[in-house]
């Protein structure tokens, strides 16, 4: 569709280019598969909650199965209601008359926490996606985030005393801190890139090992050198309040800043443009799809590998910077699994930068909802980690969904215009379903 109008007027071709990725058959199919994978993992999670609720010990049953009268300790329906409704701050009045909760505003604590997670996951998701597009598995976003976060915290703490306290200094510190995070994460990401390019060391293993190394080395550095005096946990001092992203509209305890989310969305746009519409991005994609062909085409594959991993690491590092400057206010040893969640976000998004936004939001909902599950139910919050693994597993097996599609006659595989159209309508229907769930 995009290449059908070589000499058409500019607005039309621009429109076609913007729309193309959404009507592209493979993108539509990916969307269907992602939505189906989410639904299927929710179903499996449902069964898991049910079975473990049967085995767990409790005095009163939380849920009784209709018709059979068998009692279960956990209520699987309640779990998902709490998960999705709670992540948004209970906009739906479940059980009460009326569908919507009249007291609900979008600027509530739970929704702020969800958006805070979403913001962080945008960066780690983009980090994994960029590497994926270059045919590289960056499992090391977690380590790059740890290193980036530490460089951010240390550079801001070092620079803060030199500047007069105030909003101007705050802006400077945020910019410098974010840049430091990008440099730190980028350098850490360049290591496996160079090892892959020049020593043929498998990046899956080296990045996983570098995760352990980053966590341990950063821990020791902070423990021995940079630990805040009198701190009971291994953590640096807090960066000054004015050097943190300000929480506008949302309560400050959400650790969420709209500015950071806007920055994340800007990065999505920039990265989409970079990957799809620049020559460097083209090199990156071709070496991801067909490395040998890229070499023949004059692409320096080794350099591209190092560049892609550096860019990927830098994005992970910025994620770390945002974690320090928005969420935590300091570097501390117990960093959440944002890098691993980034893998899921990227795979769910089909490694497309634009897809990262809804995927990150969905995961933000899962993470925000996990907190609510912890507050309101007895179900272990690790359920969300299981769902994360299941989603990756199901997204990895598109053939399974194609098979189901063939059996049920939905989403034809013939590849003709009819097949494409039906897949597309499925995509929109599935997309709506996903929205309703969220």
């Amino acid at each position, binding site marked *: 569709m995009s290449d059908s109008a070589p000499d058409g007027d500019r607005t039309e071709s621009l429109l076609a280019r913007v729309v193309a990725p959404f009507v592209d058959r493979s993108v539509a199919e990916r969307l269907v598969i992602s939505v189906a994978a989410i639904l299927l993992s929710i179903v499996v999670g449902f069964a*898991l909650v049910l079975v473990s609720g049967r085995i*767990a010990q409790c005095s009163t049953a939380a849920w009784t199965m209709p018709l059979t009268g068998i009692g279960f300790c956990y209520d699987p329906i309640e779990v998902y209601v709490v998960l999705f409704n709670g992540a948004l701050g209970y906009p739906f009045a479940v059980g009460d008359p009326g569908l919507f909760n009249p007291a609900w505003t979008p600027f509530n604590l739970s929704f702020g926490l969800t958006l805070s997670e979403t913001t962080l996951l945008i960066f780690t998701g983009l980090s994994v996606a960029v590497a994926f597009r270059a045919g590289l598995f960056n499992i090391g976003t977690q380590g790059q985030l740890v290193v980036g976060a530490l460089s951010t915290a240390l550079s801001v703490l070092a620079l803060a005393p030199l500047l007069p306290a105030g909003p101007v200094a705050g802006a400077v510190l945020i910019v410098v801190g974010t840049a430091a995070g990008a440099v730190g994460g980028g350098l850490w990401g360049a290591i496996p890139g160079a090892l892959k390019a020049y020593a043929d060391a498998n990046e899956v293993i080296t990045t996983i090992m570098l995760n*352990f190394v980053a966590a*341990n080395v950063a821990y020791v550095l902070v423990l021995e050198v940079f630990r805040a005096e009198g701190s009971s946990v291994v953590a640096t001092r807090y960066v000054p309040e004015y050097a943190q992203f300000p929480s506008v509209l949302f309560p400050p305890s959400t650790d969420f800043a709209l500015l950071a989310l806007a920055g994340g969305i800007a990065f999505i746009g920039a990265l989409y443009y970079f990957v799809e519409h620049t020559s460097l991005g083209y090199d990156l994609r071709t070496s991801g799809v067909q490395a040998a062909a890229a070499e023949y085409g004059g692409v320096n594959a080794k350099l591209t590998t190092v560049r892609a991993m550096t860019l990927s690491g830098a994005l992970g590092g910025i994620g770390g910077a945002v974690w320090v400057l928005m969420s935590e206010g300091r570097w501390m040893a117990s960093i959440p699994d944002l890098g691993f969640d980034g893998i899921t976000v990227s795979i769910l998004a089909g490694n497309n930068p634009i897809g990262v936004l809804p995927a990150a939001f969905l995961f933000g909902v899962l993470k925000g909802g996990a907190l609510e599950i912890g507050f309101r139910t007895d179900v*272990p919050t*690790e359920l969300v980690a299981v769902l994360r*693994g299941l989603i*990756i597993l199901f997204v990895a097996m598109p053939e399974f969904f194609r098979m189901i599609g063939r059996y049920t006659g939905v989403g034809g595989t013939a590849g003709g215009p009819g097949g494409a159209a039906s897949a597309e309508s499925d995509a929109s229907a599935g997309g709506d379903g996903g929205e309703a769930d969220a």
Partner: protein
Amino acid sequence: MPPPAATGVKPMRNPLSPASLLEGASESGYVRSLMAGTVGVLALLGVSGLAFPDSVAGDLAGIVFSTSTATSTARLAAPIVLAGLGGIFAEKSGVINIGLEGLLIISAFVSVYAASVVGVGNAVLGVPALAIAFLAGIAASTFLSAVFAVVCIEFKADQIIAGLAVWLIALGLAPFLSTVFFGGVNTPNLGVSVGWQYSATMVVFATAGSWWLLNKTAFGKHLRAAGENPKALDTVGVSVSKVRYAGVLLSGVLSGVGGSALALSIGQFVGSGETMVQGKGFIAIVAYLFGNYNPLGTLGAGALFAGLDAIQIRLQQLGYAIPDTLVQTIPYVVVIVVLTLVGRTQIPEAAGEHYETEE
């Protein structure tokens, strides 16, 4: 002049031909030099330790040749070597199993759970609790590997992504179940542990058995053919899918033994952070790459990595003023260095690719 096409076409390789047997011989030459190097380093350390008993070398030699280091090496090597052996079977058959870590995690948890359900000291039908714990751990790991096999072979999933999924599922599921059953991500201690002798025995038997299975049986030949040249295997009438299923399931069985041995040697499952497995499954992958898909080489590499771990534990106890976390990092760094040095391993020709049967 030969037609240009003829020069471009790679000659089809028969994995059962004398040429590939020759390749096997050179491979064991690589393993021999590896062993000679290890023995050389140990001898150097021993001599310098004897010559200067009061120096760091003396201390280090004392640690390396102490029995407590040997026993903890045996304990720590079991999950690495067993999972590594499993990884050989899967990868030789053409399925890269990066989910070994997940298999170790799930079997570690399930074995402890089974032991606590039966009750240590009790027996079911004359089978003691610890044996049941092992069987349960193996069953859990094999089940998860079967899921992985179906996803990869039947549904043509990307093996790396599916392997990651196996790891992440186990990483979530084991602490989840531990919280359901025991109220926390760490299980209570069983108060009993399996001695290092059992771990060492299992490792030795598994290594010898794997070597025999890979090199001396028809199954081993089929396995290698499925990974190197599935089409040839298909042509002689052996189902590539069946051989690959067998390879992946074997990786599940062996990892199950390894994960159960790890947890039962302590008597507890620790599920916080990266769980008690702490990347041993990934180190196992490097161990078999380092050993070049040879069970003996994998045993050597696994013992090396476990030995490093054991030495750092002892260094802590001797009070060297190095932060223990930094010393714990050494095995991971060694893995990266090793992988960089032996990066170009002889990965099976068709590993990672799906094979479509021609009917």
